[in-house]
């Protein structure tokens, strides 16, 4: 078997293995906590959003949109050798930039949403850029710089929003709603998936997946970034500008997470920036998505959809006597077992051997 193909095969099989184990584990927990409802409950997890027709499916796409992007952010950085744990910060900063344009940019007319989306990308990029610069020029550990930037971002945004009369809804302790023109157009998706919150943001996320796929796998730029990810010294030796690459990688990763924030807060589903000192969970979910998707853009797309799907299933699970945290448990178990690629690899090798031996 071709080596690259072999690797993909192992990856895919271990993801499937992990998902099966995770779901099985979930089922056992359901059985243990409420045997009578375990079977229909489990069935609801598996089919939840499909039983709610097109609306259910639309919701899956809607929930998947931001986590695909934060996953892409983490995964892209992974591919270039950086652990971007700064997605929560980049996400909220992106969201902030989007709502600023969304609230104050009424003069932009019908271009308002486009500018707002672009603003979120720029703000996220800026937030990713900082750890990049600190790492490239001062050797500051990316993980710790990202953690610090998360908190700085969260406090800063809360500070600004709360202090601004034009952004803050003091009756609700959250940001004001964005203008109608700043909401991302439905792009026909509302006809396809009536009553769901899905909107054009999903297309933008897909576009980002395709774009990152091309950058990583088809371009000279991606070639450089990946080289740096695998071996920083060798990339430097080969004349690649490693400092520039680190900074660009983090900026792009930040831009993706920022975009995630922008798309969610411009979705027109009634999401607002709450003035609470808590890091954005969508950012952390991105790590899970990236890991399950093996950091490859296509894998991340599928992983994002899967996690959104099963999370939706968990929502419908409330029709039974279970609390929705079971889904987090299942996802955690899936991520955990996705780390067991070794077993799968040995298994495949043994299988290959047998087959070859049989010939």
């Amino acid at each position, binding site marked *: 078997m071709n080596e690259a193909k072999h690797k993909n095969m192992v990856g895919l099989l271990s993801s499937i293995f992990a998902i099966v184990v995770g779901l099985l584990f979930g089922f056992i927990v359901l059985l243990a906590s409420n045997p009578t409802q375990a079977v229909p409950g489990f069935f609801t997890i598996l089919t939840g959003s499909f039983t709610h027709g097109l609306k259910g499916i639309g*919701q899956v796409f809607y929930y998947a949109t931001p986590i695909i992007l934060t996953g892409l952010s983490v995964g892209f950085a992974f591919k270039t050798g950086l652990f971007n744990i700064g997605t929560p910060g980049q996400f909220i900063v992106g969201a902030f930039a989007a709502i600023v344009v969304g609230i104050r940019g009424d003069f932009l007319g019908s271009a308002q949403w486009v500018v707002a989306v672009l603003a979120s990308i720029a703000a996220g990029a800026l937030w990713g850029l900082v750890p990049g610069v600190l790492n490239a020029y001062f050797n500051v550990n990316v993980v710790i710089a990202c953690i610090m930037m998360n908190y700085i971002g969260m406090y800063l945004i809360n500070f600004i929003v709360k202090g601004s009369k034009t952004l803050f809804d003091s009756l609700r302790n959250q940001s004001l709603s964005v203008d109608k023109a700043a909401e991302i157009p439905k792009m026909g998706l509302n006809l396809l998936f009536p009553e769901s919150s899905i909107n054009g943001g999903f297309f933008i996320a897909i576009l980002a997946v395709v774009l990152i796929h091309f950058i990583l796998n088809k371009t000279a730029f991606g070639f450089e970034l990946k080289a740096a990810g695998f071996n920083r010294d060798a990339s430097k030796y080969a004349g690649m500008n490693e400092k520039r690459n680190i900074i660009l990688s983090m900026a792009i990763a930040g831009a993706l997470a920022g975009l995630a924030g922008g798309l969610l807060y411009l979705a027109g589903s009634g999401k607002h920036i709450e003035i609470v000192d808590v890091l954005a969970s969508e950012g952390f979910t991105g790590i899970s998505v990236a890991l399950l998707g093996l950091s490859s853009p296509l894998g991340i797309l599928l992983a994002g959809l899967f996690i959104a799907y099963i999370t939706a299933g968990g929502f419908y699970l409330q029709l039974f006597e279970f609390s929705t945290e079971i889904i987090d448990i299942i996802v955690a178990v899936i991520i955990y077992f996705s780390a067991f690629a070794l077993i799968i690899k040995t298994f495949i090798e043994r299988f290959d051997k047998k087959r070859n031996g049989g010939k």
Partner: protein
Amino acid sequence: SSNKTGESTSDSTTTETTDTKDAAADTATDKTAQGETSAEGYEIALITDIGTIDDKSFNQGAWEGVTQYAKENNKTYKYYQPAEKTTDAYAETIELAIEGGAGIIVCPGYLFEEAVFNEQDKNPDVKFILLDGEPHNADYSEYKTSENTMAILFQEDEPGFLAGYAAVKEGYTKLGFMGGMAVPAVKKYGYGFVQGAEYAANEMGLSSVEITYNYTGGFEATPEVQALAAAWYGAGTEVIFGCGGGVGNSVMAAAEANSKAVIGVDVDQSPESDTVITSAMKKLSVSVYDGIKSIYDNAFQGGKTTTFSAANNGIGLPMETSKFTTFTTADYDAIFAKLAAGEIEIKNDTTESDAKTAINALGLKIVKVDVVE
């Protein structure tokens, strides 16, 4: 309550003497806290908002009301959590509850205003009880409470007023107000609190009362809140009104460490810590209980907004568990009667977002409020 788990967790609930007692204890004993099974689903549903079912605030109070009524009358009931904090998600959850068989849906918190506005007419057969808000559309241009919806508001400034009044009457002159997020309910508590203190100081002819005033920005118990409270106590504050879910727990932790006093909020919090001298209560669970009852009794007050205040005995301090030495029940009854009769005017406009400006607008003379931002 004789159940084993009920006893072990009972500190938070069983010593309560208010009418929420049984319901609260049941919350703790019910295996899944999700209500009882029935073939047709669950008749009474509650949708949680930001916090969880044990947020020591709207969700919990409302849930206690639901549980109590359902248990007493053998109804099925259940709560649902939205997938995220958006209007769409609230609406989706309401629809899920309806799918789950709900005929009555309790929505605790102003965040549901839009969702209920949209859903009430879509589902005319379902009754909605909206707490702390009135249904309106996204840009506030249209308010509408349909016939199947009952909106309940609370006059939080009144229990806040009583707490501030009692504290100063008790002899405290250095007070603290520590709110959670600066949402209207919290603000009203705070405004009432400082005005109550002013009222008492005025009565007593005091020359100065100091209040340190802050919104922590969240409803969680955090070390930061505990540190802040400890610092206030360290700087001389004698009693802090811990006004916002988990915030109170951190304040209590600090009070215990400094042997100082705490005023609880929403429900009687005296079981949670010996430092709680009294609590500014609004009878959330009673309001929900009564609302549900009225539906089953065919006496539903749909299409209207009901306000719970001193006038209808919807707020108050739990004098039975309060640890006052100077401030007597007679004092309390007197001031309560005045409030109920509308003899005291409390300013409670929450539209101003800047805390300093808002407090200045209250026109205090004796009480000096130090707003910490």
